């Protein structure tokens, strides 16, 4: 399909801006002006509408396809939350309004929403306080490890190392490194953190260990069975426990990370709390902490006065600073809050129950189709390997051909030919059954003739694309290559 730039017709205009202002050359010296106008598309409104409507039709999406992408929690995003975030009282609110003298009075509704969201997240996780500033999960991780650094600094020491299990999301080590930490990778055993390995590492580096970042259930979809011992090991070294909340959909209402002994947690509102993924974002990654880390949270914080009015508190002398231009991805937080209020406490616990049910049902039904490595209950997702002789990538592409989005492939790195599926609670049994039958058919076909899968997908706008050529040619804009 041609790009919008290739469809541009010189002189055409959607006439969006009407103005009788003089030309810029009459208002600024020529040396401060660009030599030629930006080469943006020149299109009618219908040209633009048709182009992007057609582009949209070249996507799979949760609204049209089962999307069991592991680790991504691609659940249905309810439509009413879109309405809530688009209310003009929120959408048109300038963030600096609340920063003006008496300006807080003009943003009481927005401040109340932020406060409410924070209280809900505290009760869900068992944490003392939350910041809603982080703008995505990885941004939350960065905030969380920065809080850990601040905790140790306040105790008059700089601890340089963070422990991360080898099954963790790539963002964990990347976030810790970005905050200036050195990463020590902890090898898994039987899909879990090996407490003996952990003990040995702490014995060796104890005085220099700032903390441990855990994903629990981990990326293999398994609950860590040694959690109490892990918590005790870290506590013993006065090191902190970070909980990567990407998998919160598995435990909501069943375990509170604060009660379990974690010091800091980030949540992905765009996963657990049903805000749409937007083709890659925007997300929102609030960070919760227990009492000993609360003084270091980013500023400002939303607080409430005795008269019930809300204000922005900047008087936080030990704060790490500011992670976002203002109060975080406010529009995303609104959608998540609306979802929480709609479901209530019982509904949120039910989410975890049915997410885990669907994952275990799917895993059980696939046991005679794929190689499923761990013979125990899984959490909200599970890993499987392509049967001997077949490639995970070919299976993924063959699923696309049958109208299903593929599971996550080749992650975690520690599983051979890995297919990692997360069905979520919003999918019906007949969808799960249809997916099982599709996979059964693909595997049967592939075993009979392994080359049969290599051609897939044949019925999408493009066939398998040459990624190596893309990296070599580096055509990243219409003007390159």
């Amino acid at each position, binding site marked *: 399909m041609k790009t919008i730039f290739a469809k541009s017709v010189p002189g055409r205009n959607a006439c969006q801006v009407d103005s009788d202002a003089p030309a810029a050359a009459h*208002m600024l010296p020529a040396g401060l002006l660009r030599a030629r106008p*930006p080469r943006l598309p020149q299109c009618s409104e219908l040209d*633009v509408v048709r182009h992007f409507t057609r582009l949209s039709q070249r996507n799979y999406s949760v609204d049209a396809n089962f999307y069991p992408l592991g680790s991504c929690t691609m659940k249905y995003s309810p439509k009413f939350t879109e309405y809530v975030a688009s209310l003009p009282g929120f959408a048109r609110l300038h963030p600096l309004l609340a920063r003006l003298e008496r300006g807080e009075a003009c943003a*009481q509704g927005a401040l109340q929403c932020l406060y409410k969201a924070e209280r809900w997240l505290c009760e869900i996780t068992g944490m003392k306080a939350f910041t809603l500033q982080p703008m995505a999960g990885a941004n939350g991780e960065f905030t969380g490890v920065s809080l850990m650094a601040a905790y140790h600094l306040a105790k008059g020491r700089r601890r340089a190392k963070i422990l991360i299990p080898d099954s963790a999301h790539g963002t964990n080590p990347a976030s810790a490194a970005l905050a200036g930490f050195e990463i020590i990778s902890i090898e898994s055993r039987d899909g879990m953190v090996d407490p003996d390995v952990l003990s040995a590492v702490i014995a060796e580096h104890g005085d220099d260990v700032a903390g441990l970042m855990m994903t629990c259930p981990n990326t293999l979809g398994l609950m860590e069975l040694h959690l109490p011992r892990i918590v005790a090991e870290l506590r013993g070294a006065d090191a902190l426990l970070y909980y990567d909340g990407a998998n919160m959909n598995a435990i909501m209402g069943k375990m509170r990370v604060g009660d379990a002994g974690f010091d800091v947690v980030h949540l992905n509102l765009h996963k657990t709390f049903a805000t749409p993924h937007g083709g890659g974002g925007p997300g929102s990654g609030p960070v919760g902490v227990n009492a000993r880390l609360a003084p270091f949270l980013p500023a400002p914080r939303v607080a409430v006065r005795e008269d019930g009015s809300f204000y922005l508190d900047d008087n936080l002398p030990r704060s790490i600073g500011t992670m976002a231009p203002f109060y975080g991805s406010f529009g995303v937080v609104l959608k998540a809050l609306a979802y929480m209020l709609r479901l209530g406490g019982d509904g949120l616990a039910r989410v975890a129950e049915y997410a885990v049910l669907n994952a275990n049902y799917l895993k059980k039904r696939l046991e005679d189709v794929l190689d499923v490595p761990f013979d125990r209950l899984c959490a909200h997702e599970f890993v499987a390997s392509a049967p001997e002789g077949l490639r995970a990538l070919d299976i993924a592409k063959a699923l696309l051909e049958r109208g299903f989005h593929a599971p996550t492939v080749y992650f975690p790195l520690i599983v051979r030919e890995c297919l990692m599926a997360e069905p979520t609670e919003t999918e019906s049994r007949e969808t799960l059954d249809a997916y099982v039958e599709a996979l059964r058919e693909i595997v049967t076909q592939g075993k009979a003739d392994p080359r049969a899968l290599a051609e897939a997908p044949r019925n999408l706008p*493009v066939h398998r*694309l040459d990624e190596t050529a893309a990296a070599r040619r580096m055509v990243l804009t219409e003007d390159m290559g």
Partner: protein
Amino acid sequence: MPFIPHTPQELREMLAVVGVRSLDDLFADIPPDMRPKHFNLPKGQSEAAVCAMFEELAAKNRPGMTSFLGAGFYAHHIPKAVDALAGRSEFYTAYTPYQSECSQGTLQAVFEFQTAVSRLLEMDCANASVYDGGTALFEGAMMAVRATRRRALLVDEAVNPVWRAMLATYCAGLQLTIKTIPQENGMSRPAALSAAVNKDCAAVIVQNPNFFGVVADYAGVFAAARENGAFGIISVYPVMQGVLKTPGEMGADVAVAEGQSLGQPLSFGGPWLGLMSCRKEHIRQLPGRIAGRTTDGDGNTGYVLTLQAREQHIRRARATSNICSNQALCALRALIHLSLLGPDGLVRQAEHGMALARFAAERLTALRGVELLNDAPFGNEVALRLPTGAEGLVAGLMDRGCVPGYPVGRHYPGMENVLLLACTEANSRNQIELLAEELGGML
């Protein structure tokens, strides 16, 4: 059960397949002493009740006043077609386009977005966005730190204080030094910036127009940076960029922007997006997703995520950034917005704001004791020195339904009387006449 389709019979049958008796048995692996101590949350509510509650909360906000508030974040009209198109759930309920064949819509849009950003800024290439203008500035600085292996950043004090505060927070654990070059009456000092660049310097960071609305040419600063092996980094306001000398023309290495003014509602601070672009030789230092054009086996053109060896899911601790989710839907909105405006629309939008800002400057400086903070060229935003504290004046005018701008004293001690006033197509000459009248009455 909202959003859960299972019937009681399906539940029984599925539990039987799994081989457990109850839903709670599925959580047997959670150690008993790690079960929640409490989970005291209200009951769920109907969709109607939740919507009504938020309508009531939204009504407690007052976004509707006449406003000249900008300071980096602007109330622009968003064509309704942006909402209609970005509101298509084929776009907004998709994930990051890992499976390219079923994500050509998103991927081609990212490629077009990268093209639009590169052409707007006249840089070689761009990424698929980062979170906001502040993180874009930080990521740009990190590109320079990695490429030059130097640890000092030189920052103009007239870069938006919100982003400078973020930069300081993000760099806190990295043993970097940030040296700030003072502004003078709201004017950046290109000569002082050039003179301060040396061989220890990873990057010099400026903004155009600067926080005070002042427009300048930083070509000399970037030339000095190049001579010293440092990066020249500039943050711009995309709407004014329709007419202003481009980062490419000035010789910047990295150009970034807060993309809010391109089709994103103000939404009390987000979600917005950070634009990031660079010269071709720095491409492997760029953080985040990048889409590239390629072909399939039959020679059909298609798009994929490319240069992924830079990213966290491959390189983990040695990635160029930790970013995973970006602002894809916001980038799509920005692209649609720019496509609807076209070159003519964007230029007209910039000129309209500039003309109104000049009209406001003329009317308000006619009032006793009000003067321009400086005589430098400005865009659609202008700094005025008032005869009294700006905070109090703003509060007084807000009681009369008008926000006259942003008092900058909170960020710049000694400038308590300075008001920063921005104009967009949301403003009119009539509003300015009324503002002049009200303000005149108060002074």
